[in-house]
């Protein structure tokens, strides 16, 4: 028996949402796109170090999926995490400063691109080891269910979204996480962002049943769905009923989210493993254009308003870069902070990053003062 569904002509739930919701989606996708374009430039300019994996092309997935859940629902992902963090509402300043290696970054500039954590927004990272975030997702879902049902004696109220790349399908951790979620009846949706490649390996070369990965879920008795991730309508329309069902039944679900990354795996990928035509095919049918066109057709967006929006976002991202530029570099003593909670031996205790302090209202609202070092405890 397989519970996999082919892409279906679902009810067009998205089209029934208020236009300003869809305008917000457009804004979120544009923000991610612009952020990533600037990220690539900053990487070339050597303002960003480490390795850097951009999300361009997959914007509809992060935005559409987070739109289908509530803010209280935890999300977790792998290292290609900029899109999820921004879609979840991370201020781009913290994300940019993190990649610039500055103290104002969401991980105090000590991590970089794969370290986008946003506790106030229930975004649990950003994790570098492929597949290893999947059991964490299972644990996040276990925790919400435990709290709701065991500690509060009620019923499940939250759904965890655990994103993974198609490469993660081949890791043992993914399979252990799926089995655990199944056996424990956990409210989690594993969303495989199936962009067809893990680094230079096409899914057909790395994954058995790569053409039909929902068969993996069948092996765990799990409901599954195939969703077209290159259109925010199909993402939302596909995800919303799954999220509702997952919340109601507290049963895990697996999604084969078909998507495409327009750029290379990382910044130094010559992309010899695929053709220019293939890239062109996706890029010419761009996810952002699709939504913008729809909004225009429906009379919810004018060319002028669109241009204005694009400019506004450009300004916002540029401001985030300036903020990141002005944020100080971590002091050398930061090597010894945040390792343990206590101060002992060489260790200097810990303190929350700016992003957490600001959310708690402890931060200073003045832009230029916000980069102040948090050495006060």
């Amino acid at each position, binding site marked *: 028996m397989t519970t996999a569904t082919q892409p279906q002509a679902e009810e067009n739930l998205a089209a029934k949402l208020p236009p300003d919701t869809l305008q917000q989606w457009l804004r979120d996708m544009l923000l991610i796109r612009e952020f990533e374009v600037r990220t690539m430039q900053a990487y070339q300019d050597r303002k960003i*170090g*480490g*390795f850097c994996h951009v999300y361009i092309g997959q914007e509809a997935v992060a935005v559409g999926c987070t739109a289908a859940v509530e803010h209280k629902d935890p999300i977790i992902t792998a290292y290609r995490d900029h899109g999820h963090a921004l879609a979840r509402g991370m201020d781009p300043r913290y994300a940019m400063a993190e990649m610039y*290696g500055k103290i104002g970054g969401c991980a105090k*500039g*000590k*991590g*970089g*691109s*794969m*370290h986008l954590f946003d506790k106030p927004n229930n975004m649990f990272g950003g994790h*570098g*080891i*492929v*597949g*290893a975030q999947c059991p964490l997702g299972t644990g996040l879902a276990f925790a919400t269910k435990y709290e709701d049902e065991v500690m509060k004696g009620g019923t499940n109220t939250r759904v965890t979204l655990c994103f993974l790349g198609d*490469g*993660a399908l*081949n*890791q*043992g*951790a993914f399979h252990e996480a799926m089995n655990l979620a199944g056996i424990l009846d956990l409210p989690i949706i594993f969303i495989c962002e199936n962009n067809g490649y*893990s*680094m*230079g*390996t096409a899914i057909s*070369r*790395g*994954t058995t049943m790569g053409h039909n990965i929902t068969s993996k879920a069948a092996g765990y008795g799990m409901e599954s769905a195939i969703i077209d991730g290159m259109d925010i309508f199909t993402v939302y329309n596909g995800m919303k009923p799954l999220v509702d069902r997952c919340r109601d039944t507290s049963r895990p679900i697996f999604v084969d989210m078909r998507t495409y990354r327009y750029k290379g795996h990382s910044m130094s990928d010559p992309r*010899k*493993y695929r053709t220019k035509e293939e890239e062109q095919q996706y890029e010419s049918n761009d996810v952002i254009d699709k939504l913008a066109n729809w909004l225009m057709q429906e009379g919810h967006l004018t060319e002028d308003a669109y241009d204005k929006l694009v400019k506004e976002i450009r300004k916002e991202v540029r401001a985030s870069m300036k903020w990141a530029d002005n944020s100080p*570099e*971590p002091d*050398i003593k*930061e*090597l*010894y902070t945040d*390792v343990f909670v206590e101060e002992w*031996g*060489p*260790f200097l205790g810990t303190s929350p990053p700016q992003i957490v302090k600001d959310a708690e209202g402890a931060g200073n609202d003045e832009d230029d003062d916000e980069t102040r070092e948090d050495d006060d405890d």
Partner: protein
Amino acid sequence: MANLTLVQAINLALIQEMEADDRVMLLGEDVGPNGGVFRVTDGLHARFGGDRVVDTPLAESGIIGTAIGLAMNGLRPIPEIQFEGFLGPAYDQLTTHAARMRTRTRGAFTVPMVVRVPIGGGIHAPELHSDSPEAIYAHHPGLKVVMPASPYDAKGLLISAIRDPDPVMYFEPKRIYRAFREEVPEDEYTIPIGEARVVSEGDELTIVTWGAPVVQCMKAIENSEKSIELIDLRTIYPVDIDTIEESVKKTGRCVIVHEAPKTCGFGAEIATSIMERCFLHLEAPVQRVTGFDTVMPYYKLELEYLPETERISRAIEEVVAY
């Protein structure tokens, strides 16, 4: 002779051993047409084909476990793990199977496998791409652990490792993959596992190091007026303690340099062995210049973390002045 980088020397050794012995085969993530993340296996797929240069799924536990099976059943697999930080999923296979198979089967089955792994910091990589876990593997009896610091040694050590009947962790310091070139003989030659190299002789102080910091130590020695003996371990385990002993008995002073965190780093093992063997010859306490007991930081603080020349120079002065 050819003037080669460390990467090229490894590539050459792989070609020659694969030509000489068709039991030798490679497997790993994108090691085929792509040539691996650091292009170490560049050209090998074209030369030997996909049956001997095998692209694998993204699955470290599977790669190493499969390589162990291949080795137990007569082949000479050389799996590649892309970065030392991804050894985690494979750790179980390495330590519960590879390291113990000879002992567990009382010699009936062995694991002649070479695990190639880029190691260490200095290339502006993020967390999990810059660590130095050599001591962790040296702590598991049954695994040999080597780390070349020059193109010449890289080739000779790799050939020894491939021909060795037991599993060898072959760590490649990624910081010096292409940092300099060296004359490397075309013909095959071996460098015995377990033999350190005396890089420069001296009689006032001994420096013991391995991997990329060899370069930093050479700079520190150049900047110093003291007569310093530099030992590049080349093999972490089994360690060539005799060479260290001989040197420290001569100099009476020793500085140990490594990238890994200080606590339980391999330097602790060497310092203790020196104490056991050279106690009455010591003129000063042994000093360690190492990474810190914390996670390798993002690139802005990377050079603060690594044992750079300045810190080594300071240690030299202190130990000599003691």
